[in-house]
């Protein structure tokens, strides 16, 4: 089994406190029963299983967590959450870790990078059109990943079923959508 260095733990108390505060979860309550990992449909593809993520939050292992693939592979299905005997919400902890990784500009790779590109592209569509424009989001994602023809077969099926729209649909009050993105950015900059 891999060894985790616990040197310098006192300095990382701050990280533990922040994760607990931002997620609203008293991570210290986790007693490592492993039920979250047992029920997680994605645990097999994660580099750190969910119960270890909870333990690492307790220990303040910031770099390991923010650089993990796990936080991006978590699909927020919340199976862990409904089964936790301590009433914790590990899915929410994963969510907070994703937000932190992004805020800190963590360099992503592998699976995590792809999820991040997808999320960014999705939000870009919402920002521009007020709604997610499926075709634009998919094409944009493929171009950014350097795989322009990925899912071309799926796209063709959708086209034949009349499920592809070539133009985005927008709400009338687009300025209200722009306002949301601007205000959030402003408030979050103030909090920093």
């Amino acid at each position, binding site marked *: 089994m891999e060894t985790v260095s616990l040197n310098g733990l006192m300095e990382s108390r701050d990280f533990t406190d922040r994760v607990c505060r*931002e997620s609203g979860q008293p991570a210290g309550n986790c007693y490592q029963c492993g039920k979250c990992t047992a029920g997680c*449909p*994605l645990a097999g*593809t994660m580099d750190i299983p969910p119960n270890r993520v909870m333990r690492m939050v307790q220990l303040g292992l910031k770099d390991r967590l923010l650089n993990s693939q796990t936080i991006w*592979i978590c*699909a*927020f*299905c*919340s*199976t862990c*959450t*409904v089964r936790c005997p301590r009433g914790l*919400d590990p*899915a929410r902890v994963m*969510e907070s870790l*994703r*937000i932190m990784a*992004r805020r800190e500009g963590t360099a992503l790779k592998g*699976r995590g990078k*792809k*999820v991040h*590109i*997808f*999320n*960014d592209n*999705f*939000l870009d569509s*919402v920002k521009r059109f*007020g*709604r*997610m*424009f*499926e*075709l634009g989001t*998919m094409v944009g*994602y493929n171009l950014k990943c350097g795989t322009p023809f990925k*899912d071309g*077969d*799926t796209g063709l*099926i*959708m086209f034949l*079923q*009349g*499920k*592809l*729209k070539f133009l985005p*649909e927008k*709400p*009338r*009050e687009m300025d*209200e*959508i722009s*306002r*949301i*993105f601007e*205000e*959030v950015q402003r*408030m*979050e900059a103030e909090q920093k």
Partner: protein
Amino acid sequence: MNYSYFPGCCHHTSAREYDLSTRLVCKNLGINLTDVPDWSCCGSTAAHSTSRLLALALSARNLALAEETGLDVTAACAACYQRLALARHELSGDGDLMKKVNKITGKKYRGDIKVKSILDVVHESAGDQLETMAVKPLKGLKVACYYGCLLVRPGEISADDPENPRKMDIIMEKLGARTVEWGYKTECCGASLAVSNEDIVIQLVEKIIRNAVLAGANSIVTACPLCHFNLDVRQFKINRNLGTGYRLPVFYFTQLMGVALGLNFADIGVYSHFVNPTKLLRSIG
């Protein structure tokens, strides 16, 4: 029964048939749906993975617009339902956060109206009239009701029991179908990981389909566009990549309700699936 209806971004595209069948079935059941005026995206997973405030504000704008109609709001898409319901839950329990989010949206959301999934609405309103309304009972259909995650988790917003939901099963049984007992009704399909990490989703979906088949189902019923897309369209990739030969029709529960109510197949979009269900539907009765 009157509700405001949140169509969601896929309502004219990947989930077209869910929207069509939802509107028609509700009309037939006497449930009046009025679109949330000028609705915008709920933010989905991308927003709540990026910024808590952004996620709350994108949903809160829609909640405020729905509140102006004075009607409780319902969403067909499980992801939209979860985001709207979670935003309502979080904002109603935190006055300061509500003020902050209202400042962002420039709207006055108060938290007065309820958020319900369309499954809940139909289950509640249709109740006992379903048996008598079924002009074409779903005899011969053995359905695996698949609820996925977002409709039933987390517990605060669950539209049914998070571990053993039954509402879809009850509706299908009342309409004459047989439902199967199986262990994958709330297992995750991987949702939008299908775009970024398709290999993972193929494994997850194969397990779900395999277990539905092993349980004796001849079709799967869902209440979520993401689940439907992953289970239906990705069957061809599963077969291609894993050498399997699945041809299991996947329906939205509203489509099978429409079939039982005698609606025109084309009007409820049963021909717009990747796995063609025509043969199975012909065998009904």
